[in-house]
């Protein structure tokens, strides 16, 4: 029987465009009697309803969670238009899933209840102490504008349990992003996955951006729509275009990727990524903005070097990882593509056993962050 030899984590991906075929390919690679959870990331190009049905049919009683992407990290490195999945073996992972459909109404009471339920569920099958050996992954609808509050609330309820995650993407169309749970795709929703395991693991986040001298003060913002109308007292587009030395018409995602802005809190810089230029001369962001915050112009350091250093450090602490689940900002991927380093990036991701997706924002310990590589590294079974 194959189940006795199955590793704790299996991964699979499919290029098939037909949902049934894609689901069948994943099932063929992942199914075994002890499969406890399937986590998948799929291109938003799939007919989602059909894909959802096909996955449910293919995996039966096994819980399935996932989201749409702005690109996938597959067993071969970066991919597009695909679906990639990770299978968790129930003998190594006690898993519990939660779905939040009303993000507006998600308050601390609900968060507490959700976390209690998730952890109680985990505890029933717990394989290791809950407090030390559990992490939580969040998948959010990346265009919901509610990430900050939901995450801050969830983090407060989770206490010391580390959490990370990514915001779903839609191949840079900025139209419809979805998360998957309980057998179908949902918009305006969040999926919360609690994982308890004996395997050593570490939740991490890294970015390769360094501060420059220039500061941009947000002098007018529309916080509801995450828009910055003015920077340093002039229209936001004008100020940003001058900063990067380009005409306003030339601003696009590639420029945003190479010239990010960040807020400094304490010693750390947190990138606030620009989503797009609006007709009224304002800039839309992927995360919360506010009048009076000070944005620091950032400049990129070598991106793959930074990632390799981070992954090396993880491997030295945990031993060779059996898998890394990566939430990789799509702006990083744009930068890598602009630098012509896709192949080197794919090689690095493949060699370090990264599976994941390109996000519209990452989550780390309850913080909604941008332009980072955030995830969990799972070590190998001890003895």
């Amino acid at each position, binding site marked *: *029987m194959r*189940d*006795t030899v199955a590793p704790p984590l299996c991964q699979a991906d499919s290029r098939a465009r037909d949902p049934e075929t894609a689901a069948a390919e994943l099932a063929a690679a992942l199914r075994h*009697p*002890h499969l406890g959870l399937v986590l998948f990331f799929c291109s938003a190009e799939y007919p989602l309803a059909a894909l959802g049905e096909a996955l449910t049919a293919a995996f*039966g*009683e096994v819980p399935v969670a996932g989201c749409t992407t702005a690109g996938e990290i597959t067993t071969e490195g970066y991919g597009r238009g695909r679906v990639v999945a990770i299978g968790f073996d*129930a*003998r190594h992972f006690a898993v519990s899933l939660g779905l939040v459909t009303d993000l507006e109404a998600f308050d601390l009471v609900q968060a507490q209840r959700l976390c209690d339920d998730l952890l109680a569920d985990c505890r029933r*099958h717990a394989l290791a102490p809950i407090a030390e050996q559990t992490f939580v992954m969040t998948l959010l609808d990346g265009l919901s*504008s*509610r990430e*900050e*509050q939901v*995450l*801050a609330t969830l*983090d407060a309820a989770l206490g*010391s349990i580390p959490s990370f995650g990514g915001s779903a993407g839609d191949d840079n169309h900025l139209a419809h992003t979805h998360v998957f749970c309980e057998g179908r795709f949902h918009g305006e929703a969040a999926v919360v996955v609690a994982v308890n395991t004996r395997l050593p693991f570490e939740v991490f986040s890294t970015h390769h951006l360094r501060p420059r*001298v*220039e*500061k941009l*003060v*947000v*002098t*007018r913002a529309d*916080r509801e729509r*995450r828009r910055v109308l*003015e920077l*340093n*007292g*002039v229209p936001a587009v004008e*100020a940003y275009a*001058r*900063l*990067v*030395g380009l005409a306003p018409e030339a601003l696009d995602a590639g420029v945003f990727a190479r010239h990010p802005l960040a*807020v400094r*809190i*304490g010693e*750390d810089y*947190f990138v606030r990524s620009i989503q797009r230029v609006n007709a009224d001369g304002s800039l839309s962001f992927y*995360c*919360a*903005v*506010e*009048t*009076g*915050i*000070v944005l620091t112009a950032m*400049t*990129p350091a070598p991106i793959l070097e930074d990632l390799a250093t981070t992954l090396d450090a993880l491997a030295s602490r945990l031993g060779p990882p059996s898998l890394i689940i990566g939430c990789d900002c799509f702006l990083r991927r744009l930068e890598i593509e602009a630098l012509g380093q896709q192949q080197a990036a794919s090689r690095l991701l493949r060699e370090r056993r990264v599976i994941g997706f390109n996000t519209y924002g990452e989550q780390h*310990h*309850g*913080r*909604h962050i941008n332009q980072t590589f955030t995830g969990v590294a799972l070590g190998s079974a001890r003895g």
Partner: protein
Amino acid sequence: MVDISTRPSPASPLDLPGVEPGQSQAALAEENARLRRICAALIERVESSAQPGTAPYAAFEHTVVLAEQVRERTETLRHTLEALREAKAEAEAANLSKSKFLAAVSHDLLQPLNAARLFSSALESQDLGEEPRRLVRHIGRSLQDVETLLGTLVDISRLDAGVLTPDRGSFAVGELLDVLAEEHRQLAAAEGLDFHYVPSRAVIDSDLTLLARVVRNLLGNAIRYTTSGRVLLGCRRRAEGLEIWVVDSGSGIAEDQQRTIFEEFRRGPAERGRLDRGLGLGLAIVERIAGLLDHPLGLVSRPGRGSRFSIRIPYGRAYPAPPPEVGAEAPLRGLTAWVIDNDPEICIGMRALLEGWGCDAVTATGVDDLERGERADLLIVDYHLGETDGLAVAARLRREWPELPVILITAYHDAELKAAARARGYGYLLKPVKPLRLKMAMLGLRRR
């Protein structure tokens, strides 16, 4: 990265890159207006940041700051905990080594003492004068007392060192108490006390030797601290277990001392004016043994009236427990069972067996062939089904009938499969299926 600033350094971080500051009145006014706007925005931000806001950016900022604080405090806490853990380990190690040392010393002392007693009894049998004989007898009795005291010390240090493990079993309480009653009846009579013993036929579950030590200490104390009146040994049946009572009409213990008398080296005031040779370890031993055996102690006492010590022991089993009633057919009668096995012969065999027990059996060689009625009480499914497997079939049927009890049958043992079945709450049986085991499994699932 190309430095895109065209402005000569040093520049203000707030200058507009690419714009040379004009020196005209109008240009300065414009720059002034711009800086005012920046100031206004910063003022707004600074002033609102003190408010506990629910705004999105504030939530983010708050989480970042909080995370840093939590990280720092967690770090401090971890250091403190580590230090505490180390200190505790050291203290435990020190305590353990003290107990071991005491046990070793006591044991080493017993050896020469034993020899001294032998010599003194040898001396006693010599032809001595009356006075020397009396002295030798005194020496002998003193040595015996020292031996008893050392024995007590050994006991308590062994208890503390955790080297004493109880050997529990069922026995009639009479086996224990009859002997102790006989021993103490004479001791009580020597002190001029009445001794009453009420026998019991109860069967208890305990360690005979350790429990004897407890009752002996309690009786010894009762006699020691009672000047006149009586001492009673008896039992009382309670729902939770049997209580052995030792009651005396002695001096009693004040309420504020009823806790401390169980501590080491505590002694009640010697009543009799005689030399009290105890070390005050009797009740300390009683408490440790009771804790070790998990037998609750009780004490009711009134100064001047007397005391009642009790210890509660769980009931034992007088006879081996009767086997579960697997012979009775009734519990399975009328039960509808689905049987899926890709071997038609097995289907026939199972049907015959199940119908023999009064069950309705619906058999099929595959899940698609199963004639499902409204419901079934039980699914018996083979793991090896060719294309699919029993777990998948059970999962599929449980989607329609979530509570359906399942018994998984497999031809060869696989620990992983067994665990998988367990995890799902399924029964798990090996082929060839033994009818009695199947029936037990069915009864077990049905009872749930």
